[in-house]
């Protein structure tokens, strides 16, 4: 087993969502904090892909931003032992400067990080574009001349320019059509093999994660509820929430397998339920679950599993 490249230990992040000071002073309202990430810990080993899944508001994007340093953790530690990390964002329209030619976009990390000498840059840019399946001429174009999938290729080329060990990918294919998504996923897996990259792959789409990930973490309301090998988690999900998520995925094979109806919705993160955050929706919840927060033991944070009730 390889050494961990990135370690998160008990990381939390709060956001202040209080009303303005004057309202608080006049109406006697307390400060309100939203805990977007709550005691999350995992490690990513060199060369692997860790998938992180969850619904909106589960805190998976906040985890990505904590890792790349766009947010500082409120508590806990993020340790990165590699040389450099880069991020790929969901929206290839918002993450590329519309006024810059592709050549300049891809060259920027090379200059800023002084990866190669100045006269080396054009060659390196061309090589990077070729690596993601773009032609050298594409360097002269502006981002708007490309389709969504090609823009995401540009984002990947830019990320690779910094020669990162770890790529943090936040929903990199969610804005793309499915045939283009397949191209990008295949490209990412080829690059991983060729360059020995490590990925943190965040997605709400379980099928996409099962396609790329070696290990998978499932988040619910800011907490990590299950973390296990991909084969393990998709064949034998243990946490009731993971089971529910897997049951909700539309069944393309139309096998007519029985499905547990999904009940309820994600609660308001401002007022997370006490005890296990999932207990109001959980068919296996008992009195202990409403009181006591389950720790991540083994691979899963669930009393019912630990007590061998399910």
């Amino acid at each position, binding site marked *: 087993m390889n050494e961990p490249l990135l370690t998160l230990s008990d990381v939390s992040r709060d956001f202040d969502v209080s009303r303005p000071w004057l309202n608080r002073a006049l109406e006697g309202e307390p400060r309100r904090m939203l805990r977007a990430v709550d005691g999350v810990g995992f490690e990513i080993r060199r060369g692997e892909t860790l998938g992180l899944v969850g619904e909106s508001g589960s805190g998976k994007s906040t985890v990505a931003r904590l890792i790349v340093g766009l947010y500082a953790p409120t508590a806990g530690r993020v340790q990165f032992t590699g040389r450099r990390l880069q991020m790929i964002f969901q929206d290839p329209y918002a993450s590329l400067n519309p006024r810059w030619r592709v050549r300049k976009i891809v060259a920027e990390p090379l200059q800023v990080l002084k990866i190669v000498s100045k006269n080396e840059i054009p060659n390196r840019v061309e090589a990077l574009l070729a690596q993601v399946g773009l032609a050298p001429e594409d360097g002269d174009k502006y981002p708007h001349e490309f389709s969504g999938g090609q823009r995401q290729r540009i984002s990947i080329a830019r990320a690779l320019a910094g020669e990162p060990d770890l790529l943090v990918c936040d929903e990199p294919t969610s804005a793309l059509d499915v*045939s283009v*998504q397949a191209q990008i996923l295949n490209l990412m897996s080829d690059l991983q093999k060729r360059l020995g990259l490590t990925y943190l792959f965040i997605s*709400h789409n379980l099928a996409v994660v099962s*396609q790329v990930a070696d290990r998978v973490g499932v988040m619910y309301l800011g907490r990590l509820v299950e973390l296990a090998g991909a084969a393990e988690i998709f064949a034998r999900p243990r946490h009731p929430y993971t089971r529910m998520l897997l049951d909700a995925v539309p069944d393309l094979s139309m096998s007519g397998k029985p499905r547990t109806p999904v009940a309820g919705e994600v609660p308001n993160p401002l007022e997370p339920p006490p005890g296990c955050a999932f207990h109001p929706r959980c068919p296996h919840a008992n009195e202990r679950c409403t009181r006591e927060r389950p720790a991540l033991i083994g691979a899963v944070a669930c009393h019912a599993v630990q007590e061998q009730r399910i």
Partner: protein
Amino acid sequence: MILEVKDLRIEFPTRRGTLVAVDGVSFTIAPGEVLGVVGESGAGKTLTGLAVIGLLEPPGRIAAGEIRLEGARIDNLPQEKMRRVRGRRIGVVFQDPLTSLNPLYTIGAQIEETILAHLDVGKAQARSRALALLREVGIPAPEARFQSYPHQFSGGMRQRVVIALALAAEPSLVIADEPTTALDVSIQAQIIALLKRLARARGTAVMLITHDMGVIAETADRVAVMYAGRIVEIGPVREVIHAPQHPYTAGLMGSIPTISFSKKKHLAQIDGAMPRLNAIPPGCAFNPRCPKRFDRCLVERPALMPAGSSAAACWLHERAAANP
């Protein structure tokens, strides 16, 4: 048939020439049937839906073809008449429930208003109908939520309200354009089940427009696959998914990731991208990306022809029919 669309052609006149966004599209939907319309962005599926409900925005226009609702043409109705048809006989569910709801009125008032505008009932009756609808779409404690505003609902609940609104005047046809795309998977499954149940129970014809083949597999009876403004394949969902007859459908199905327990393999991929509207190639629009193309595909456009239990617009099937 509730809805019959025949040879629909939608054009956008521009300074550099006319763009044909939808080209020769024909399909029908029977009572109680869910027709899925699937395709990638720019395939023309949303425009087809907008044409049916008469909300095509200028300069886009219907250049040819006809649309019939329960036998009568609706594509050439004057705006005011079309407005009566919409709402009364065609219900609409869009992707973003917030754009379909007025933020300044309670949801109860909005449903009541729709019922009063289209049906011949009194105020008290309208109210009890609205409550029954909210209950039917699964809003818990509808009496209590009647006076709530749209922002007080979650995304999934809002989409339920929009579905109640679309069904308020008991339309014979519902057009649902990406109704679950903005929702989380667990909520998506609930909304899909709801749409399907309501269509069956009320005998409503549903045109379900989506890019998500999974949603189609769960909901639709038949599916039309669109590519570059054309229907390339149409048939029963099971056949189209398990035995796609058009190379594009086959490629599309192969590129959808599925949950697998074993170590991942490469996905099948269709190289290239769908052509832009100003650069649709002659012959079959899919020919530059097609692994099975031959001479005829480059020059002559294939019409839908029988292929298995579906119909596909692909010359391979004529060749197969000629040399069995």
